[in-house]
């Protein structure tokens, strides 16, 4: 460990937390995700700083971890039969409605959209990050985009 890791965490922590928040849609999950990813980054800091790009490394861990945690947590939540934590104090219009509907996407589809539209990454890079083919990235993105439009109509219908 050295000071550059400390500096990296201080310098990039909040930006990574925001990335975690758009990935997960939940502040607790985002905080967990970023801390866990930074712990792992810390373990391999010397290797990463020499060979790779730590920011890319930690963002990759976060995207992958989000997908695997989501599966586990979903199981836990289903098994615990927890009541929906779904309340919101924001008005659901425009961006807010779209944000809320992102929560209806499976985690990989959401990750693809975040990497493409929040991180502005090309599909080939997204494929490398998630460990899938470029074709999968395209099809997941396409399904997610379709669903967000359908999801919006469904939500409007439910409101009536």
């Amino acid at each position, binding site marked *: 460990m050295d*000071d550059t890791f400390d500096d990296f965490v201080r*310098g990039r*922590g909040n930006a990574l937390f925001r990335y975690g928040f758009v990935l997960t849609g939940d502040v607790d999950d985002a905080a967990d995700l970023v801390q866990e990813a930074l712990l792992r980054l810390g373990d391999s800091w010397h290797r990463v700083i020499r060979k790779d790009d730590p920011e890319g490394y930690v963002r990759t861990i976060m995207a992958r971890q989000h997908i695997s945690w989501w599966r586990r947590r979903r199981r836990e939540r289903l098994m615990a039969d927890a009541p929906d934590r779904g309340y919101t104090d924001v008005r659901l219009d425009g961006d807010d409605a779209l944000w809320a509907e992102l929560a209806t996407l499976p985690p990989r589809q959401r990750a693809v959209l975040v990497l493409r539209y929040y991180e502005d990454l090309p599909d080939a890079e997204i494929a490398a990050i998630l460990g899938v083919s470029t074709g999968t990235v395209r099809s997941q993105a396409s399904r997610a985009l379709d669903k967000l439009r359908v999801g919006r109509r469904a939500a409007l219908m439910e409101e009536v």
Partner: protein
Amino acid sequence: MRTEQDLRAALQEAAARAVDPADIADAVRVRRRRRTHRRHQAALASAVVVIVVAGGSAVLRGGGGGSTDAGTTAAPTTHATTASPASAPPSAGPAGPDLRKFLPARTVWPDAVFTIPAEAPDGSGYSPLTALSPTELLMIARTKFSKIDRLDVYDTGTGESRVITRMPASKKDYHQWRFEVGADYIGWYGTMLNGRKGGWADFWVAPRAGGAAIKVGEVTGDLSGVSAIGVSSDSFVWSIRPGGVYRMPITGGSPEKLAGTDGLWLQSWPWAVDVPPIRIGQVQDRNQSKLVNLETGETRTIIPPAGVKGLGCSIEWCLGRMGNAVIVMRPDGSGLSRIPVPSSYLLPPLGSHFAQMSGAVVYDLNTGKKAIVGVRPVGYSWRATSSSPLLSWEAGRGKLDVLNLLAVDG
């Protein structure tokens, strides 16, 4: 029909609105430490087992139990940092203080907390770096890709900002790590995020009054392992991780080691100390024993009280750990007292006479007043500068709250 642009906007808006959690760096520090502790426990437990087995005794369960305990607690289950007001305070541990009993900084120091826009007039993201005066904040303006674009001064009295200097064009992976404000110049250093074999860093300054950035020089090898920086009237100054303080003339020239600085680390120019900076994942047990003025050569000797660990001093105050308590004293040993806020780790003093405890509590060492920063018990932002007299946190809805400690005494 929604467009891809709407999606971009929704994601960015949500990210901008997310209330920052309490310091992620501290949370990671604490988690690393807990894990190390657990590993030690596990190692100890195994050692016990070995000894017990060798001795042929039947007390095996003791060792086995310890081992199981260490194993089952190893899973990361806690939300050490969260933006939820109901959850435990970050990093404070199970015995941490109930942060709800502290008053917010805005109530305690109403003239020192300001709400400022989180965006510059041109739409760049704003993060406060430090306070230059009771009304002037030095701001980092970032592009939407989080690249540092320029330094501004924001006046909390008038609500206006002006550009101090623009960051020179740089490669994608270049990152400016630390900024430090000197009497005449603001200095900073950067490295490549992807690393470069053997290390590399470059040093810059800009006039504090405003003006173009001046490249001081580049260093490689050990000299690029920067632990702290400073700017004197004519030089860029830095210390390196193994210790030792160097300078390079602002007008350009070769790096030169300051005489007698072996085993010293820059704290805040012109002061250097004989303990390395606090690092994530490590607990500093060593006590600082001196403060050295690198301009005048003056050395102040610090005598740590018995039982104190991790004593660290600025020229005004020292903070250290004694058992589970935090103690403060003047560097000359006077004014020794306990801070009535438990904290599991120590950060260097903030500004001239403040301490930050348990992540979100700010304690005025001169008056004993304390307050909580953040939205309820959460959130303050990172510090990219040493002993900055400023803390900031997300206020939501495109605003930041700033506690300017220079305005506390006003």
